[in-house]
């Protein structure tokens, strides 16, 4: 075991993992994230906490992770390279490890122009792949990025993202290979709305043997309304929503039910794709629906390891 987190145990055991994510509140009240933790505690193996997602300021990921850890959840701390340089990130990683936060997901982060402080200076000292490599060096060689020794162990389980729906398509697998080479242990993909395209990507992943090197969790998003489908299609960076999905949501008598139905259908198809080791549910501002989805998808009870 590299970190001994619940997520690592589940994935290493070969079980089909269920992870999900929450966004911290735009404020200082602990109960907001605690309420979400309480709701999701029994329904997932690990819970991601976003790091100023969409470049909108929220409570820090590491502090929110500590609140969840205290409740017995296995948090996944997200780190984006947009806001912090290599010094700040390394010190946060040491602090997080000391507090028992041992799953870390490495991301580029949406550009600051897209958020609520568009005039901010972006940092981008490292990119997401360099971040993965730095964490691996911290863990395996106990060395900082500069080469100096770290005192004590840094037991972390390293995650990364993959977007099979971004361009150029053919290059996406090479980029995943770079992330595996840099040291990623698990991968969370961008939300899948086009299973055929995802399956094609997975085939390329298997051809390079990458499914044997990293655990791939396929991302899903339950859509709440036709408006949300349109918004994601037109404005959310990195998310690909085919027109067909928008039409289905527009035509549905009960949009929420249709959103859940489509999400379950996608999960069912994803389970059958070789090399997919779990799902990652991103229920944006709709965390309440997660227990129902996990139950209906036949993924309960979650294994206790």
């Amino acid at each position, binding site marked *: 075991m590299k970190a001994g987190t619940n997520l690592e145990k589940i994935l290493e055991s070969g079980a089909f993992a269920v992870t999900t994510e929450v966004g911290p509140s735009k404020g200082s009240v602990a109960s907001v994230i605690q309420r979400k933790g309480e709701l999701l505690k029994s329904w997932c193996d690990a819970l991601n906490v976003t790091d100023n997602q969409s470049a909108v300021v929220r409570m820090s990921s590491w502090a929110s992770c500590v609140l969840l850890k205290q409740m017995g959840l296995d948090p996944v701390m997200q780190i984006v390279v947009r806001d912090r340089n290599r010094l700040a990130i390394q010190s946060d990683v040491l602090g997080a490890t000391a507090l028992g936060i041992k799953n870390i997901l490495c991301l580029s982060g949406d550009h600051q122009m897209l958020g609520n402080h568009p005039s901010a200076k972006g940092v*981008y000292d490292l990119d997401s*792949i360099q971040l993965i490599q730095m964490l691996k060096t911290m863990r395996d060689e106990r060395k900082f990025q500069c080469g100096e020794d770290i005192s004590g162990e840094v037991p972390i389980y390293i995650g990364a*993202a993959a977007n099979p729906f971004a361009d150029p398509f053919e290059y996406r697998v090479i*980029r995943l290979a770079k992330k595996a*080479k840099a040291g990623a242990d698990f991968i969370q993909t961008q939300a899948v709305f086009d299973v055929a395209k995802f399956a094609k990507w997975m085939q390329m992943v298997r051809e390079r043997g990458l499914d044997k090197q990293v655990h791939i969790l396929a991302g899903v998003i339950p859509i709440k309304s036709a408006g949300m489908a349109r918004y994601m299609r037109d404005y959310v960076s990195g998310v690909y929503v085919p027109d067909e999905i928008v039409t289905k949501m527009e035509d549905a008598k009960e949009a929420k039910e249709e959103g859940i139905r489509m999400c379950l259908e996608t999960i069912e198809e994803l389970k059958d794709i070789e090399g997919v080791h779990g799902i990652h549910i991103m229920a944006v501002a709709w965390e309440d629906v997660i227990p129902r989805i996990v139950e209906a998808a036949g993924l309960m009870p979650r294994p206790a390891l």
Partner: protein
Amino acid sequence: MLISEQKPFEEILSSLDGEKTVFLIGCKGCAEGCETGGEKEVMEMRRKLEEQGKTITGFSMIDMVCDEPLTRLKLKAHEETIAASDSLLVLCCGTGVQTVAASADKIVHPGCNTVSSGGAHAEWREAERCLECGDCILDFTAGICPIARCSKHLLNGPCGGSQEGKCEVSPDLPCAWQLIIERLTKLGRLDRLEDVVAPKNWSVSLTSGPPTKR
């Protein structure tokens, strides 16, 4: 004047690893003034590379390399020689290296680091293509600069926000990494992106503050 410094010879040599025939390009503008890419330096580079067993297929002195129409015209005269060479080594500022990359379907190696624009602009006005980062990486990015042209300065791009060749920041902004991948694909050298590129040395960049003793 754009201020450049020649890269250490060992770095230049290592970037030419596996290549036998090299065509040299020098600049009679700023690089001549900086004594990094004038005729004297180009001849010196030819001598040193030949000593290392490289074949220098020819050279061209351009006044100035960042003048895109002029560079196209000058390289046209060497079209066949360039086509028969493994690569081009360009001794001038980063904008000039990118002008050459845009003018020839050939791997382009930068021979210099651009440390300051000295308050001036290069002649290629349509876009600011060199941010004088002081540690030129155009060698593995097909002569297209991700520091100047990627919104996140990624060295292992593209990020997940690249859609249909455009950056997530604006539909008017081309994704630099899409351009890099397209060009490397065209040159049959996509393998150059397989390795993980290490974090950049920003200490030689003006983004770290005013220049100090280098």
